[in-house]
Protein backbone atom coordinates (compact mmCIF):
# COMPACT_ATOMS: atom_id res chain seq x y z
CA UNK A 1 0.00 0.00 0.00
CA UNK A 2 2.99 2.27 0.21
CA UNK A 3 4.15 4.53 -2.59
CA UNK A 4 2.20 6.63 -5.00
CA UNK A 5 -1.58 6.44 -4.77
CA UNK A 6 -4.22 8.17 -6.84
CA UNK A 7 -5.88 10.74 -4.62
CA UNK A 8 -9.41 9.92 -5.70
CA UNK A 9 -10.99 6.97 -7.43
CA UNK A 10 -11.74 6.85 -11.13
CA UNK A 11 -15.18 5.36 -10.56
CA UNK A 12 -16.17 5.21 -14.23
CA UNK A 13 -13.16 3.01 -14.96
CA UNK A 14 -13.54 1.08 -11.75
CA UNK A 15 -17.16 0.13 -12.47
CA UNK A 16 -15.83 -1.93 -15.39
CA UNK A 17 -13.94 -4.11 -12.90
CA UNK A 18 -17.27 -5.42 -11.53
CA UNK A 19 -18.96 -7.71 -14.07
CA UNK A 20 -22.29 -7.71 -12.22
CA UNK A 21 -22.71 -3.99 -12.87
CA UNK A 22 -23.25 -4.83 -16.54
CA UNK A 23 -26.55 -6.50 -15.85
CA UNK A 24 -29.89 -4.79 -15.74
CA UNK A 25 -32.84 -5.25 -13.40
CA UNK A 26 -36.29 -5.01 -14.96
CA UNK A 27 -34.82 -3.09 -17.88
CA UNK A 28 -32.95 -0.63 -15.70
CA UNK A 29 -29.25 -0.20 -15.04
CA UNK A 30 -28.30 -2.00 -11.81
CA UNK A 31 -27.71 0.55 -9.08
CA UNK A 32 -26.28 -1.38 -6.16
CA UNK A 33 -26.62 0.52 -2.89
CA UNK A 34 -26.43 -2.34 -0.40
CA UNK A 35 -22.70 -2.89 -0.01
CA UNK A 36 -22.95 -2.60 3.77
CA UNK A 37 -24.78 -5.93 3.61
CA UNK A 38 -22.41 -7.45 1.06
CA UNK A 39 -20.25 -5.89 -1.62
CA UNK A 40 -19.97 -6.91 -5.25
CA UNK A 41 -16.83 -8.64 -6.51
CA UNK A 42 -14.25 -7.36 -8.98
CA UNK A 43 -13.16 -9.60 -11.84
CA UNK A 44 -9.71 -9.99 -10.25
CA UNK A 45 -11.25 -11.80 -7.26
CA UNK A 46 -13.44 -14.05 -9.41
CA UNK A 47 -10.53 -14.93 -11.68
CA UNK A 48 -8.20 -15.65 -8.79
CA UNK A 49 -10.68 -18.15 -7.36
CA UNK A 50 -11.33 -19.75 -10.75
CA UNK A 51 -7.62 -19.96 -11.41
CA UNK A 52 -7.04 -21.61 -8.05
CA UNK A 53 -9.67 -24.28 -8.71
CA UNK A 54 -8.51 -24.82 -12.28
CA UNK A 55 -4.81 -25.14 -11.53
CA UNK A 56 -4.02 -25.61 -7.86
CA UNK A 57 -6.68 -27.10 -5.66
CA UNK A 58 -5.74 -29.64 -2.99
CA UNK A 59 -6.26 -29.71 0.75
CA UNK A 60 -3.92 -27.48 2.74
CA UNK A 61 -1.36 -28.50 5.37
CA UNK A 62 -1.84 -32.15 4.44
CA UNK A 63 -0.05 -33.45 1.36
CA UNK A 64 3.62 -33.28 0.40
CA UNK A 65 2.87 -33.14 -3.30
CA UNK A 66 3.15 -30.06 -5.48
CA UNK A 67 -0.53 -29.10 -5.59
CA UNK A 68 -0.92 -29.36 -1.83
CA UNK A 69 2.15 -27.25 -1.28
CA UNK A 70 0.95 -24.63 -3.74
CA UNK A 71 -2.52 -24.56 -2.19
CA UNK A 72 -1.01 -24.21 1.27
CA UNK A 73 1.23 -21.43 0.06
CA UNK A 74 -1.70 -19.57 -1.52
CA UNK A 75 -3.79 -19.96 1.63
CA UNK A 76 -1.00 -18.77 3.91
CA UNK A 77 -0.08 -15.94 1.54
CA UNK A 78 -3.49 -14.40 2.19
CA UNK A 79 -2.83 -14.57 5.92
CA UNK A 80 0.26 -12.42 5.39
CA UNK A 81 -1.58 -10.03 3.09
CA UNK A 82 -4.36 -9.60 5.63
CA UNK A 83 -1.86 -8.97 8.39
CA UNK A 84 -0.30 -6.22 6.28
CA UNK A 85 -3.69 -4.78 5.39
CA UNK A 86 -4.71 -4.28 9.03
CA UNK A 87 -1.30 -3.35 10.39
CA UNK A 88 -0.89 -6.56 12.37
CA UNK A 89 2.65 -7.29 13.54
CA UNK A 90 2.56 -10.88 12.27
CA UNK A 91 0.32 -13.30 10.37
CA UNK A 92 0.32 -15.54 13.46
CA UNK A 93 -2.46 -13.42 14.91
CA UNK A 94 -4.68 -13.77 11.83
CA UNK A 95 -7.28 -16.52 12.25
CA UNK A 96 -9.53 -17.40 9.34
CA UNK A 97 -13.16 -17.87 10.31
CA UNK A 98 -16.39 -18.18 8.38
CA UNK A 99 -17.22 -14.49 8.79
CA UNK A 100 -17.11 -11.66 11.33
CA UNK A 101 -19.98 -13.25 13.22
CA UNK A 102 -18.04 -16.45 13.76
CA UNK A 103 -14.98 -14.43 14.74
CA UNK A 104 -16.95 -12.70 17.50
CA UNK A 105 -18.46 -16.01 18.57
CA UNK A 106 -14.96 -17.46 18.78
CA UNK A 107 -13.91 -14.74 21.23
CA UNK A 108 -17.15 -14.98 23.22
CA UNK A 109 -16.90 -18.74 23.39
CA UNK A 110 -13.20 -19.15 24.07
CA UNK A 111 -12.07 -15.96 25.79
CA UNK A 112 -15.48 -15.21 27.26
CA UNK A 113 -15.92 -18.61 28.84
CA UNK A 114 -12.38 -19.39 29.89
CA UNK A 115 -10.27 -16.25 30.13
CA UNK A 116 -12.65 -13.55 31.31
CA UNK A 117 -11.88 -13.00 35.00
CA UNK A 118 -14.61 -14.39 37.20
CA UNK A 119 -17.21 -11.80 38.12
CA UNK A 120 -16.13 -9.27 35.50
CA UNK A 121 -18.62 -7.66 33.15
CA UNK A 122 -18.74 -7.21 29.37
CA UNK A 123 -19.32 -3.72 27.96
CA UNK A 124 -21.14 -3.34 24.64
CA UNK A 125 -22.99 -0.46 23.01
CA UNK A 126 -26.56 0.27 22.06
CA UNK A 127 -25.65 0.40 18.38
CA UNK A 128 -24.23 -3.10 18.00
CA UNK A 129 -25.24 -5.51 15.25
CA UNK A 130 -26.93 -8.67 16.49
CA UNK A 131 -23.63 -10.45 15.70
CA UNK A 132 -22.03 -8.47 18.52
CA UNK A 133 -24.98 -8.84 20.88
CA UNK A 134 -26.27 -12.38 20.73
CA UNK A 135 -22.96 -14.16 21.47
CA UNK A 136 -22.72 -12.07 24.65
CA UNK A 137 -26.37 -12.59 25.54
CA UNK A 138 -25.65 -16.32 25.21
CA UNK A 139 -22.66 -15.92 27.50
CA UNK A 140 -24.84 -14.10 30.01
CA UNK A 141 -27.43 -16.87 29.91
CA UNK A 142 -24.81 -19.56 30.31
CA UNK A 143 -22.41 -17.96 32.77
CA UNK A 144 -24.39 -15.11 34.28
CA UNK A 145 -21.89 -12.56 32.96
CA UNK A 146 -23.11 -9.02 33.50
CA UNK A 147 -23.59 -7.02 30.29
CA UNK A 148 -23.45 -3.23 30.18
CA UNK A 149 -24.21 -0.93 27.31
CA UNK A 150 -22.89 2.45 26.23
CA UNK A 151 -25.88 4.53 25.17
CA UNK A 152 -26.14 6.73 22.11
CA UNK A 153 -27.28 10.31 21.77
CA UNK A 154 -29.87 11.64 19.32
CA UNK A 155 -27.31 12.14 16.59
CA UNK A 156 -26.23 8.54 16.86
CA UNK A 157 -22.96 9.00 18.70
CA UNK A 158 -21.83 7.01 21.70
CA UNK A 159 -22.25 8.82 25.01
CA UNK A 160 -18.81 8.36 26.54
CA UNK A 161 -18.97 10.88 29.40
CA UNK A 162 -19.51 8.01 31.80
CA UNK A 163 -17.02 5.64 30.22
CA UNK A 164 -14.71 5.27 33.20
CA UNK A 165 -17.60 4.49 35.52
CA UNK A 166 -19.05 2.01 33.00
CA UNK A 167 -15.66 0.32 32.70
CA UNK A 168 -15.30 -0.30 36.42
CA UNK A 169 -15.29 -4.08 36.80
CA UNK A 170 -15.38 -4.75 33.06
CA UNK A 171 -13.15 -7.52 31.66
CA UNK A 172 -13.96 -7.16 27.98
CA UNK A 173 -15.27 -4.37 25.76
CA UNK A 174 -16.74 -5.22 22.37
CA UNK A 175 -17.63 -2.30 20.15
CA UNK A 176 -18.32 -1.68 16.51
CA UNK A 177 -15.86 0.55 14.68
CA UNK A 178 -18.65 1.74 12.43
CA UNK A 179 -22.39 1.34 12.88
CA UNK A 180 -24.02 -0.64 10.08
CA UNK A 181 -27.17 1.44 10.57
CA UNK A 182 -26.06 4.94 11.48
CA UNK A 183 -22.68 4.93 9.80
CA UNK A 184 -21.23 6.43 12.99
CA UNK A 185 -17.47 6.05 13.24
CA UNK A 186 -16.72 5.32 16.86
CA UNK A 187 -13.63 6.59 18.69
CA UNK A 188 -12.26 3.08 19.12
CA UNK A 189 -8.74 4.17 20.06
CA UNK A 190 -10.06 6.35 22.88
CA UNK A 191 -12.32 3.54 24.11
CA UNK A 192 -9.48 1.03 23.94
CA UNK A 193 -7.18 3.29 25.93
CA UNK A 194 -9.74 3.74 28.67
CA UNK A 195 -10.59 0.03 28.63
CA UNK A 196 -6.95 -0.97 29.00
CA UNK A 197 -6.54 1.45 31.87
CA UNK A 198 -9.44 -0.36 33.52
CA UNK A 199 -7.85 -3.74 32.85
CA UNK A 200 -10.22 -4.84 30.09
CA UNK A 201 -9.43 -6.29 26.68
CA UNK A 202 -11.06 -4.81 23.57
CA UNK A 203 -12.72 -6.57 20.65
CA UNK A 204 -13.59 -4.40 17.65
CA UNK A 205 -16.35 -5.41 15.26
CA UNK A 206 -14.73 -3.99 12.14
CA UNK A 207 -17.06 -5.61 9.60
CA UNK A 208 -18.14 -2.17 8.36
CA UNK A 209 -14.88 -0.30 8.72
CA UNK A 210 -12.16 -2.57 7.29
CA UNK A 211 -13.69 -2.48 3.78
CA UNK A 212 -13.91 1.31 3.74
CA UNK A 213 -10.94 2.88 5.49
CA UNK A 214 -7.35 2.33 6.54
CA UNK A 215 -7.20 -0.13 9.44
CA UNK A 216 -4.28 -0.28 11.81
CA UNK A 217 -4.72 -2.51 14.83
CA UNK A 218 -1.75 -0.88 16.52
CA UNK A 219 -3.24 2.60 16.13
CA UNK A 220 -6.65 1.35 17.27
CA UNK A 221 -5.02 -0.27 20.26
CA UNK A 222 -7.46 -3.15 20.19
CA UNK A 223 -6.82 -6.73 21.27
CA UNK A 224 -9.15 -8.44 18.80
CA UNK A 225 -10.54 -7.34 15.44
CA UNK A 226 -13.28 -9.13 13.49
CA UNK A 227 -14.34 -8.66 9.88
CA UNK A 228 -15.76 -10.46 6.84
CA UNK A 229 -14.30 -10.82 3.35
CA UNK A 230 -17.60 -10.51 1.52
CA UNK A 231 -18.08 -6.86 2.50
CA UNK A 232 -14.66 -5.93 1.09
CA UNK A 233 -14.85 -7.23 -2.49
CA UNK A 234 -14.01 -10.77 -1.37
CA UNK A 235 -16.08 -13.94 -1.40
CA UNK A 236 -18.61 -15.14 1.16
CA UNK A 237 -17.60 -17.92 3.52
CA UNK A 238 -14.42 -16.43 4.96
CA UNK A 239 -13.79 -13.89 7.66
CA UNK A 240 -10.98 -12.90 9.95
CA UNK A 241 -10.33 -12.73 13.63
CA UNK A 242 -7.14 -10.91 14.37
CA UNK A 243 -6.01 -11.33 17.96
CA UNK A 244 -3.07 -10.36 20.12
CA UNK A 245 -0.84 -13.41 19.99
CA UNK A 246 -0.42 -13.76 23.75
CA UNK A 247 -4.20 -13.77 24.16
CA UNK A 248 -4.71 -16.29 21.35
CA UNK A 249 -2.03 -18.50 22.94
CA UNK A 250 -3.85 -18.45 26.26
CA UNK A 251 -7.27 -19.13 24.79
CA UNK A 252 -8.57 -22.66 24.44
CA UNK A 253 -9.54 -23.93 21.01
CA UNK A 254 -13.03 -23.12 19.73
CA UNK A 255 -14.06 -25.89 17.32
CA UNK A 256 -12.43 -29.30 17.32
CA UNK A 257 -11.34 -31.39 14.35
CA UNK A 258 -8.53 -31.71 11.86
CA UNK A 259 -5.87 -29.02 11.42
CA UNK A 260 -6.38 -27.55 14.88
CA UNK A 261 -4.53 -30.38 16.63
CA UNK A 262 -0.91 -31.38 16.97
CA UNK A 263 -1.61 -34.83 18.33
CA UNK A 264 -4.65 -36.91 19.10
CA UNK A 265 -4.67 -39.92 21.39
CA UNK A 266 -7.67 -41.91 22.41
CA UNK A 267 -7.36 -40.34 25.86
CA UNK A 268 -6.77 -36.77 24.80
CA UNK A 269 -5.36 -34.27 22.34
CA UNK A 270 -2.80 -31.51 22.02
CA UNK A 271 -3.73 -28.33 20.18
CA UNK A 272 -1.84 -26.96 17.23
CA UNK A 273 -0.05 -23.62 17.39
CA UNK A 274 -1.85 -20.37 16.70
CA UNK A 275 -3.43 -19.43 14.41
CA UNK A 276 -4.18 -22.98 13.19
CA UNK A 277 -5.42 -23.92 16.68
CA UNK A 278 -8.60 -22.07 15.79
CA UNK A 279 -9.03 -23.43 12.27
CA UNK A 280 -10.70 -26.81 12.62
CA UNK A 281 -11.43 -28.80 9.49
CA UNK A 282 -10.68 -28.03 5.86
CA UNK A 283 -10.73 -24.24 5.66
CA UNK A 284 -12.25 -22.10 2.89
CA UNK A 285 -9.15 -22.28 0.69
CA UNK A 286 -10.48 -20.82 -2.56
CA UNK A 287 -12.20 -18.15 -0.50
CA UNK A 288 -8.88 -17.31 1.13
CA UNK A 289 -7.40 -16.94 -2.35
CA UNK A 290 -10.30 -14.64 -3.22
CA UNK A 291 -9.76 -12.63 -0.06
CA UNK A 292 -6.10 -12.25 -0.97
CA UNK A 293 -7.09 -10.90 -4.37
CA UNK A 294 -9.58 -8.53 -2.72
CA UNK A 295 -6.89 -7.21 -0.39
CA UNK A 296 -4.63 -6.66 -3.40
CA UNK A 297 -7.45 -4.91 -5.27
CA UNK A 298 -8.25 -2.56 -2.40
CA UNK A 299 -4.56 -2.04 -1.73
CA UNK A 300 -4.07 -0.92 -5.32
CA UNK A 301 -6.96 1.53 -5.03
CA UNK A 302 -5.54 2.77 -1.75
CA UNK A 303 -7.73 2.80 1.33
CA UNK A 304 -7.18 6.53 1.83
CA UNK A 305 -8.63 7.08 -1.65
CA UNK A 306 -11.53 4.72 -0.91
CA UNK A 307 -12.37 6.65 2.24
CA UNK A 308 -12.02 10.01 0.51
CA UNK A 309 -14.34 8.89 -2.28
CA UNK A 310 -16.97 7.74 0.18
CA UNK A 311 -16.82 10.91 2.26
CA UNK A 312 -17.29 12.96 -0.92
CA UNK A 313 -20.15 10.78 -2.20
CA UNK A 314 -21.88 10.68 1.20
CA UNK A 315 -21.61 14.45 1.50
CA UNK A 316 -23.05 14.82 -1.98
CA UNK A 317 -25.89 12.40 -1.20
CA UNK A 318 -26.82 14.02 2.11
CA UNK A 319 -26.79 17.47 0.51
CA UNK A 320 -28.70 16.72 -2.68
CA UNK A 321 -31.25 14.42 -1.05
CA UNK A 322 -31.98 17.04 1.61
CA UNK A 323 -32.29 19.76 -1.03
CA UNK A 324 -34.78 17.81 -3.10
CA UNK A 325 -36.80 16.00 -0.45
CA UNK A 326 -36.54 18.38 2.51
CA UNK A 327 -38.39 17.29 5.61
CA UNK A 328 -39.88 14.27 3.83
CA UNK A 329 -36.53 12.60 4.31
CA UNK A 330 -35.13 11.85 7.77
CA UNK A 331 -31.54 10.63 7.77
CA UNK A 332 -30.28 9.04 10.97
CA UNK A 333 -26.81 9.37 12.40
CA UNK A 334 -24.13 12.06 12.47
CA UNK A 335 -24.84 15.01 10.14
CA UNK A 336 -21.22 15.40 8.97
CA UNK A 337 -19.99 12.78 6.48
CA UNK A 338 -16.52 12.95 8.04
CA UNK A 339 -17.98 11.42 11.21
CA UNK A 340 -19.59 8.53 9.42
CA UNK A 341 -19.10 5.90 6.79
CA UNK A 342 -20.95 5.71 3.49
CA UNK A 343 -24.13 4.39 5.06
CA UNK A 344 -27.39 6.34 5.02
CA UNK A 345 -30.31 5.02 7.03
CA UNK A 346 -33.45 7.00 6.53
CA UNK A 347 -37.19 7.15 6.61
CA UNK A 348 -39.11 8.80 3.82
CA UNK A 349 -42.51 10.33 4.54
CA UNK A 350 -44.70 7.52 5.82
CA UNK A 351 -43.64 5.10 3.12
CA UNK A 352 -42.68 1.87 4.83
CA UNK A 353 -39.06 0.89 4.10
CA UNK A 354 -40.21 -2.39 2.65
CA UNK A 355 -42.47 -0.60 0.17
CA UNK A 356 -39.76 1.92 -0.63
CA UNK A 357 -37.30 -0.87 -1.33
CA UNK A 358 -39.85 -2.57 -3.57
CA UNK A 359 -40.48 0.57 -5.61
CA UNK A 360 -36.75 1.25 -5.94
CA UNK A 361 -36.18 -2.34 -7.06
CA UNK A 362 -38.59 -1.77 -9.91
CA UNK A 363 -36.18 0.86 -11.23
CA UNK A 364 -33.04 -1.20 -10.62
CA UNK A 365 -32.00 0.39 -7.33
CA UNK A 366 -31.02 -2.04 -4.54
CA UNK A 367 -31.33 -0.73 -1.00
CA UNK A 368 -31.84 -2.55 2.27
CA UNK A 369 -35.05 -2.27 4.25
CA UNK A 370 -35.71 -3.49 7.75
CA UNK A 371 -34.04 -3.47 11.13
CA UNK A 372 -30.53 -4.22 9.78
CA UNK A 373 -29.91 -6.84 12.46
CA UNK A 374 -29.92 -4.09 15.09
CA UNK A 375 -33.30 -4.24 16.80
CA UNK A 376 -32.15 -2.64 20.08
CA UNK A 377 -30.88 0.32 18.06
CA UNK A 378 -34.17 0.52 16.14
CA UNK A 379 -36.00 0.73 19.46
CA UNK A 380 -33.67 3.51 20.59
CA UNK A 381 -34.34 5.40 17.34
CA UNK A 382 -38.05 4.84 17.87
CA UNK A 383 -38.67 3.30 14.45
CA UNK A 384 -39.61 -0.27 13.54
CA UNK A 385 -37.45 -0.22 10.45
CA UNK A 386 -35.46 2.08 8.20
CA UNK A 387 -34.33 2.11 4.61
CA UNK A 388 -30.60 2.01 4.12
CA UNK A 389 -28.48 3.02 1.15
CA UNK A 390 -24.78 2.25 1.41
CA UNK A 391 -21.96 3.22 -0.90
CA UNK A 392 -18.78 1.60 -2.06
CA UNK A 393 -15.99 2.16 -4.54
CA UNK A 394 -18.23 1.54 -7.57
CA UNK A 395 -20.95 4.04 -6.67
CA UNK A 396 -21.17 7.55 -8.06
CA UNK A 397 -23.40 10.60 -8.21
CA UNK A 398 -25.61 9.03 -10.88
CA UNK A 399 -26.43 6.25 -8.40
CA UNK A 400 -27.46 8.84 -5.81
CA UNK A 401 -29.67 10.50 -8.40
CA UNK A 402 -31.33 7.17 -9.23
CA UNK A 403 -32.07 6.75 -5.53
CA UNK A 404 -33.46 10.26 -5.34
CA UNK A 405 -35.70 9.73 -8.38
CA UNK A 406 -36.93 6.47 -6.85
CA UNK A 407 -37.95 8.27 -3.67
CA UNK A 408 -40.01 10.72 -5.69
CA UNK A 409 -41.65 7.85 -7.57
CA UNK A 410 -42.58 6.13 -4.30
CA UNK A 411 -44.13 9.31 -2.96
CA UNK A 412 -46.25 9.52 -6.09
CA UNK A 413 -47.35 5.88 -5.97
CA UNK A 414 -48.42 5.92 -2.36
CA UNK A 415 -49.68 9.51 -2.48
CA UNK A 416 -49.23 9.80 1.25
Amino acid at each position, binding site marked *: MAGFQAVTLDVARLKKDFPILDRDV*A*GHRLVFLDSAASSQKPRAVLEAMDHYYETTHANVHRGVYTLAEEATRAYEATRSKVAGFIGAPSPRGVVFTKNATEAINLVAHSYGRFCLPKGSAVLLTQMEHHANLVPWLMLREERGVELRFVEIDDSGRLVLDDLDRLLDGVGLVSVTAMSNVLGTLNPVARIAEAAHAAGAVVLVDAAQSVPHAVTDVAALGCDFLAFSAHKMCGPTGIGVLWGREDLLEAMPAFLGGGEMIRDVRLDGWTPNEIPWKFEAGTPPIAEAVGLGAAVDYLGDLGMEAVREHEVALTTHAMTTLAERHGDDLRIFGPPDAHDRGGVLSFTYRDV*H*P*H*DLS*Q*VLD*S*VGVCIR*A*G*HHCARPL*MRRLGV*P*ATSRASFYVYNDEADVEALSDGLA*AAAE*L*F*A*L
Partner: protein
Amino acid sequence: MAGLEDLYREIILDHYRSPRNRGELPAPPARRVEGFNPLCGDEVILYVDIDDSGRLADIKVDGQGCSISQSSASMMTAAVKGRTEQETRELIRAFKAMMSIHERGLGHADGDGLEAAAAPDPPVDMGELEALRGVVKFPVRIKCATLSWNTLGQAFDQAGPEGTRE
Protein backbone atom coordinates in the same frame (compact mmCIF):
# COMPACT_ATOMS: atom_id res chain seq x y z
CA MET B 1 -42.99 1.25 -13.04
CA ALA B 2 -43.39 -2.10 -14.74
CA GLY B 3 -44.40 -5.03 -12.57
CA LEU B 4 -45.52 -3.09 -9.53
CA GLU B 5 -49.17 -2.84 -10.65
CA ASP B 6 -49.61 -6.49 -9.74
CA LEU B 7 -48.49 -5.79 -6.21
CA TYR B 8 -49.86 -2.35 -5.51
CA ARG B 9 -53.38 -2.72 -6.88
CA GLU B 10 -55.56 0.34 -6.38
CA ILE B 11 -57.81 -1.41 -3.87
CA ILE B 12 -54.76 -2.42 -1.81
CA LEU B 13 -53.49 1.15 -1.77
CA ASP B 14 -56.97 2.32 -0.80
CA HIS B 15 -57.02 0.03 2.24
CA TYR B 16 -53.50 1.17 3.11
CA ARG B 17 -54.40 4.86 2.96
CA SER B 18 -57.79 4.40 4.64
CA PRO B 19 -57.59 1.29 6.81
CA ARG B 20 -60.92 -0.24 7.89
CA ASN B 21 -61.70 -1.36 11.43
CA ARG B 22 -58.67 0.38 12.82
CA GLY B 23 -58.44 0.61 16.61
CA GLU B 24 -58.78 -1.44 19.76
CA LEU B 25 -61.44 -3.32 21.69
CA PRO B 26 -61.47 -3.82 25.47
CA ALA B 27 -59.64 -7.08 26.12
CA PRO B 28 -61.08 -9.01 27.79
CA PRO B 29 -63.82 -9.62 26.82
CA ALA B 30 -62.25 -9.36 23.33
CA ARG B 31 -59.30 -11.58 22.52
CA ARG B 32 -56.09 -9.72 21.81
CA VAL B 33 -53.52 -11.42 19.58
CA GLU B 34 -50.24 -10.12 18.21
CA GLY B 35 -48.49 -11.07 15.02
CA PHE B 36 -44.97 -10.03 14.13
CA ASN B 37 -42.89 -10.33 11.01
CA PRO B 38 -39.26 -10.11 12.07
CA LEU B 39 -37.97 -9.61 8.52
CA CYS B 40 -39.40 -6.13 8.13
CA GLY B 41 -40.81 -5.30 11.53
CA ASP B 42 -44.45 -5.59 10.47
CA GLU B 43 -46.71 -5.80 13.48
CA VAL B 44 -50.41 -6.63 13.61
CA ILE B 45 -52.46 -6.55 16.78
CA LEU B 46 -55.94 -7.97 16.45
CA TYR B 47 -58.84 -7.49 18.84
CA VAL B 48 -61.45 -10.13 18.17
CA ASP B 49 -64.89 -10.20 19.77
CA ILE B 50 -66.57 -13.57 19.34
CA ASP B 51 -70.17 -13.69 20.55
CA ASP B 52 -71.98 -16.59 22.24
CA SER B 53 -73.11 -18.04 18.92
CA GLY B 54 -69.49 -18.22 17.75
CA ARG B 55 -69.90 -15.32 15.37
CA LEU B 56 -67.13 -12.78 14.89
CA ALA B 57 -69.17 -9.85 16.21
CA ASP B 58 -66.40 -7.27 15.99
CA ILE B 59 -62.75 -7.04 14.99
CA LYS B 60 -60.24 -4.22 15.23
CA VAL B 61 -56.70 -4.02 14.02
CA ASP B 62 -53.77 -2.07 15.43
CA GLY B 63 -50.06 -2.08 14.69
CA GLN B 64 -47.80 -0.85 11.96
CA GLY B 65 -46.03 -2.07 8.90
CA CYS B 66 -45.75 -2.03 5.17
CA SER B 67 -48.63 -1.39 2.80
CA ILE B 68 -49.13 -5.07 2.08
CA SER B 69 -49.29 -6.16 5.72
CA GLN B 70 -51.57 -3.32 6.73
CA SER B 71 -53.91 -3.44 3.75
CA SER B 72 -54.17 -7.22 3.98
CA ALA B 73 -55.18 -6.82 7.64
CA SER B 74 -57.71 -4.15 6.74
CA MET B 75 -59.21 -6.21 3.92
CA MET B 76 -59.33 -9.23 6.19
CA THR B 77 -61.32 -7.42 8.87
CA ALA B 78 -63.82 -6.26 6.26
CA ALA B 79 -64.13 -9.80 4.95
CA VAL B 80 -64.55 -11.68 8.22
CA LYS B 81 -66.65 -9.33 10.34
CA GLY B 82 -69.98 -10.98 11.07
CA ARG B 83 -68.89 -14.42 9.91
CA THR B 84 -68.98 -17.57 12.02
CA GLU B 85 -65.80 -19.18 13.26
CA GLN B 86 -66.27 -21.98 10.76
CA GLU B 87 -66.68 -19.57 7.83
CA THR B 88 -63.71 -17.53 8.96
CA ARG B 89 -61.48 -20.56 9.30
CA GLU B 90 -62.41 -21.56 5.76
CA LEU B 91 -61.59 -18.11 4.48
CA ILE B 92 -58.22 -18.19 6.27
CA ARG B 93 -57.55 -21.55 4.65
CA ALA B 94 -58.58 -20.29 1.23
CA PHE B 95 -56.44 -17.18 1.58
CA LYS B 96 -53.36 -19.13 2.63
CA ALA B 97 -53.96 -21.60 -0.19
CA MET B 98 -54.13 -18.72 -2.67
CA MET B 99 -50.68 -17.65 -1.45
CA SER B 100 -49.08 -21.07 -1.09
CA ILE B 101 -50.26 -22.61 -4.38
CA HIS B 102 -48.61 -19.83 -6.29
CA GLU B 103 -45.64 -19.97 -4.01
CA ARG B 104 -45.08 -23.59 -4.95
CA GLY B 105 -45.45 -22.62 -8.60
CA LEU B 106 -42.64 -20.14 -8.07
CA GLY B 107 -40.42 -22.76 -6.53
CA HIS B 108 -40.55 -21.29 -3.04
CA ALA B 109 -42.53 -24.06 -1.46
CA ASP B 110 -40.72 -23.84 1.84
CA GLY B 111 -40.07 -20.12 1.75
CA ASP B 112 -42.92 -18.96 3.91
CA GLY B 113 -43.24 -21.61 6.57
CA LEU B 114 -46.91 -21.96 5.66
CA GLU B 115 -48.38 -25.38 6.04
CA ALA B 116 -49.25 -26.61 2.56
CA ALA B 117 -52.83 -25.43 2.83
CA ALA B 118 -55.29 -27.24 0.63
CA ALA B 119 -57.92 -24.96 -0.87
CA PRO B 120 -61.35 -25.50 0.69
CA ASP B 121 -63.78 -27.54 -1.33
CA PRO B 122 -66.20 -26.12 -2.47
CA PRO B 123 -64.13 -23.02 -3.27
CA VAL B 124 -64.62 -19.91 -1.15
CA ASP B 125 -65.56 -16.67 -2.89
CA MET B 126 -62.59 -14.39 -2.19
CA GLY B 127 -64.25 -11.17 -3.30
CA GLU B 128 -61.97 -8.13 -2.88
CA LEU B 129 -59.26 -10.35 -1.47
CA GLU B 130 -58.51 -11.51 -5.01
CA ALA B 131 -56.59 -8.24 -5.36
CA LEU B 132 -53.90 -9.65 -3.07
CA ARG B 133 -53.25 -12.56 -5.43
CA GLY B 134 -50.59 -10.49 -7.19
CA VAL B 135 -48.46 -10.57 -4.03
CA VAL B 136 -47.39 -14.14 -4.83
CA LYS B 137 -45.28 -12.80 -7.68
CA PHE B 138 -43.17 -11.11 -4.99
CA PRO B 139 -42.22 -14.04 -2.74
CA VAL B 140 -40.60 -12.03 0.05
CA ARG B 141 -43.84 -10.09 0.49
CA ILE B 142 -46.05 -13.15 1.00
CA LYS B 143 -45.28 -13.10 4.72
CA CYS B 144 -46.49 -9.51 4.85
CA ALA B 145 -49.82 -10.52 3.29
CA THR B 146 -50.35 -13.62 5.45
CA LEU B 147 -49.31 -12.06 8.77
CA SER B 148 -52.78 -10.90 9.83
CA TRP B 149 -54.40 -14.13 8.64
CA ASN B 150 -52.07 -16.29 10.69
CA THR B 151 -52.68 -14.00 13.63
CA LEU B 152 -56.44 -14.35 13.29
CA GLY B 153 -56.03 -18.12 13.20
CA GLN B 154 -54.24 -17.86 16.55
CA ALA B 155 -57.15 -15.92 17.99
CA PHE B 156 -59.44 -18.86 17.28
CA ASP B 157 -56.94 -21.35 18.61
CA GLN B 158 -56.95 -19.60 21.97
CA ALA B 159 -59.17 -21.22 24.56
CA GLY B 160 -61.26 -18.11 25.14
CA PRO B 161 -61.06 -14.64 26.65
CA GLU B 162 -58.95 -16.01 29.50
CA GLY B 163 -56.45 -17.05 26.81
CA THR B 164 -55.78 -13.38 26.11
CA ARG B 165 -52.07 -12.78 26.15
CA GLU B 166 -49.66 -9.96 25.80
